[in-house]
């Protein structure tokens, strides 16, 4: 990047918030996704929508890539600046502007940390349900851009179900508002929802208005252990078939339980093959009734042990253990690769089965846990990025897992997004026509392709980086750790 451009950017955000020294660039070359890394040319940390608009104008003029970044906890390589350019960090726009108790909305900057929003609204007896495992550090902007899910997805849905209004800056510097506080609003295309899950490829989100709910009065947590995986999966299906929608139904397989126990020491029975963590909230009486019925179903489906947490603390401890699952798994081996294949929940048992078969076939260690109620699984592989041969097998296995998910009517990613990691597989899910339409939507927002380039869509032929690597004969697509289907 030219000196002149850098000094313009410096002027916009101020000396202190423009970074371009080797160390500073290096720490924005990665996010929470293993195996991906690329250097940006500069990093800016703007403090206002005006500064963002000014930065985008310059970038658009000079065709410089813009990579928006919150806390960099995404798991799809979404903030890795694969084509260099400017990393635009949003964490200084972290103000909580308003909690509107009449309209039940909250309005805040994209840099606000998810759990800080939770605390602020809960202090007023209100509730913002989406709770990704990373909520203590993820930003709301990142949640919006990835349409983050969480453990309460079964009953309460995901981020997109709560985003009512957005302010966003287009690549040309134009600042627009979409949606608002209206419970009903059909004025034109729903651009608000389009921006949710757009992974920074269309615009920079600069302000968010979210819907709030009343905080449920009661909550209970239950844990059920099974000596057979499919019993657990069937329990999930039967509970829902009986018209009970728990807030949370989380699933951990034996391998995951072992690791979590090692970390959290909460006394999990390690001879069990699977456990379900079930949480119900709402009216105290209803919660009580639901929990009794769920316990009955679990027993009928041959649960070995069912226990209801005696108090909130015990419940919170169990849930905390689940939240730590991924990180705890990373203790086992240096590199932890996590995917999020998702199937309609009625196919859950089949999917869990398939993962086991595929893991065996490629002899790679895969632990599986996830949001069972949503059919959203996190098959997680513990490996070592220095062992190229094994990494290759891991890639093959995950390719096959995605394929299995799609065959079962599922999808390649439930909540982590496409980014670079899953770009090569997007076509499997949406088809060539779908990709084409999405690309045209992107062009309408971003004609020069500066917004998070290289994400969502596998690179076209011209830009595709094809590298032949030792011990690995097939093609690698544009930095994806997946192989192309062709």
């Amino acid at each position: 990047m030219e000196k002149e451009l850098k000094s313009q950017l410096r002027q916009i955000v101020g000396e202190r918030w423009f970074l371009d020294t080797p160390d500073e660039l290096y720490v924005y070359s990665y996010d929470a996704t293993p195996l991906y890394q690329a250097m940006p040319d500069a990093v800016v940390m703007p403090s206002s929508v005006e500064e963002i608009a000014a930065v985008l104008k310059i970038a658009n003029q000079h065709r410089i890539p813009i990579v928006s970044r919150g806390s960099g906890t995404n798991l799809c390589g979404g903030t890795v600046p694969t084509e260099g350019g400017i990393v635009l960090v949003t964490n200084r726009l972290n103000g909580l502007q308003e909690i509107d108790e009449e309209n039940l909305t909250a309005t805040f900057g994209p840099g606000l940390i998810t759990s800080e929003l939770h605390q602020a609204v809960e202090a007023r007896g209100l509730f913002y349900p989406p709770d990704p495992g990373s909520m203590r550090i993820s930003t709301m902007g990142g949640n919006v851009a990835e349409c983050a899910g969480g453990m309460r997805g079964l009953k309460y849905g995901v981020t997109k179900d709560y985003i009512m209004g957005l302010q966003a800056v287009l690549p040309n510097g134009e600042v627009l508002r979409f949606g608002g506080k209206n419970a009903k609003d059909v004025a034109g295309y729903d651009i608000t929802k389009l921006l949710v899950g757009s992974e920074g490829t269309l615009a920079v989100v600069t302000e968010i208005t979210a819907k709030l709910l009343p905080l449920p009065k009661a909550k209970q947590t239950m844990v059920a252990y099974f000596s057979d995986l499919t019993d657990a999966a069937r329990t999930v299906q039967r509970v829902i078939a009986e018209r009970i929608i728990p807030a949370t139904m989380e699933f951990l397989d034996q391998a995951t339980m072992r690791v979590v126990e090692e970390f959290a020491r909460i006394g999990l029975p390690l001879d069990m093959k699977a456990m379900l963590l079930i949480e119900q909230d709402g009216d105290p009486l209803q919660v009580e009734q639901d929990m009794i019925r769920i316990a009955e179903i679990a027993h009928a489906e041959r649960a070995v042990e069912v226990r209801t947490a005696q108090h909130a603390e015990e419940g919170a401890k169990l849930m905390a253990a689940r939240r730590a699952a991924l990180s705890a798994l990373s203790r086992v081996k240096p590199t932890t690769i996590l995917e999020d294949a998702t199937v309609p929940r009625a196919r859950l048992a089949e999917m869990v089965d398939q993962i086991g078969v595929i893991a065996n076939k490629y002899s790679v260690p895969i632990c599986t846990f996830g949001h069972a109620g949503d059919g959203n699984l996190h098959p997680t592989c513990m490996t070592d990025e220095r062992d190229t041969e094994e990494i290759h097998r891991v890639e093959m296995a995950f390719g096959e897992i995605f394929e299995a998910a799609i065959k079962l009517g599922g999808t390649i990613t439930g909540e982590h997004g496409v980014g670079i990691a899953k770009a090569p597989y997007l076509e499997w899910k949406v088809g060539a026509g779908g990709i084409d339409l999405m690309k045209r939507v992107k062009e309408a927002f971003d004609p020069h392709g500066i917004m998070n380039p290289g994400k969502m869509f596998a690179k076209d032929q011209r830009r595709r980086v094809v590298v032949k690597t030792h011990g690995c004969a097939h093609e690698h697509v544009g930095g994806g750790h997946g192989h192309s289907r062709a």
Partner: protein
Amino acid sequence: MGALTNMLAAGTVTAGPEHCPDSSLPRLLDQFDMDEILNCMQCGFCLPACPTYRQTGKESASPRGRIALMKGAATERLQIDEEFEHNMYLCLGCRACETACPAGVPYGSLVETARDVVETRKKQKGDTSLLRDLIFHEVFPHPERLELMGSLLWMAQAAGLQALAQKTGLIKIMPRQAAEMATAVQTIASPWQRMKREPVMEPEREAAGLKIGLFTGCVMDMMFYETNQATARALTKAGCQVVFAKEQACCGALHAHAGEQSGAVELAKRNIEAFERAGVDFVVNNAGGCGAALKEYHHWFHDDPVWKERAMRFVGRVRDANELLAELPPLSFSKELNVRVTYQDSCHLAHGQGVRNQPRQLLKSIPGVEFVEMRGADTCCGSAGIYNITNFDMSMQILDDKMVDVENTKATLIVTSNPGCLLQMKKGIQRAGMTGQMEAVHIMDLIERAL
């Protein structure tokens, strides 16, 4: 084959040395523990726990960022230069990130290695700072010199440090930071006061049958002599015999944190020997920072099995004073204090040794103490060894934020378990303009007031 390698092959990762560095570098880089560095999965869970990240919002000032920088340096994609040095030293070493990290990354030892590499590199290049050398090689390892410095400090204080500093021109070599911190130093024990110390103190009540070696610490004994005596008295009240092993030395923590590994090892050997000779059941200390280092001695002897064995035995005997007092039968107090008290965790006690409940229990057991928990009590106060001298501005920002939480407790006493934190809290009280309304005190001194 991973994408990283693809990226590298495609030339996307561009940082890195322009030319090949000299041959001593690879061996130096071997010191980095790649397995542990790779164990960091970059999940970011540690970010909200890190005071320097919270202050700056910058990834380079976060644990995840620093580990990434180490990885960059270890793989020669980043140079071990001034910028790298600055980033490694901006860390407080408070280890709050270790508590937050679900992947069990031993951040504390990683950053020590990184600093060691930085210092070795500087020596290889022939540039070390004179002041640093002086302090680490000429003062800390030598008790008598430290004592001299203590005596000097004492005289200096008696005469008014600022005045002396000006008269002698000391002000020119003593940076603003050190001078500012000096204003928070309390009265230092006079040399003859320290000489009068009884080498053995006998139990005052029915004997618990324990022989305790009090680890006096270097700075601790110099500046907080009274606190050491108070600790010894509390232990004798609890029925222990307390001995002051003569040949003990500085714990070596400051050396280790500042990348002076070999100096640290020498001091560790001296202490192990001294307490072996004293034949004690427990080695008790009252400074969280020293305690954490003492408990890690076995990690300092990786390739010396004999010393490692001795270190393990030593480590098994080390206890923080809070820890041991909580295990002994309750102290019987004779006075009621009637104060509202809050507690600032010592990072190296809470995050480094997992001692959180014991000091709180002790405080609550003192008659007339109303204990209020402070928000963020276990986040660093910014003192962090000599950090408040080396990174004065950042340290003061962190401290000012901390004081807001302190004030919100409406306590009149802020209690700590580490001399560094104590000094810092005293400084904080001054900065917040609360001198006279609030007092900072070491927990052992508070206990003494009620005994």
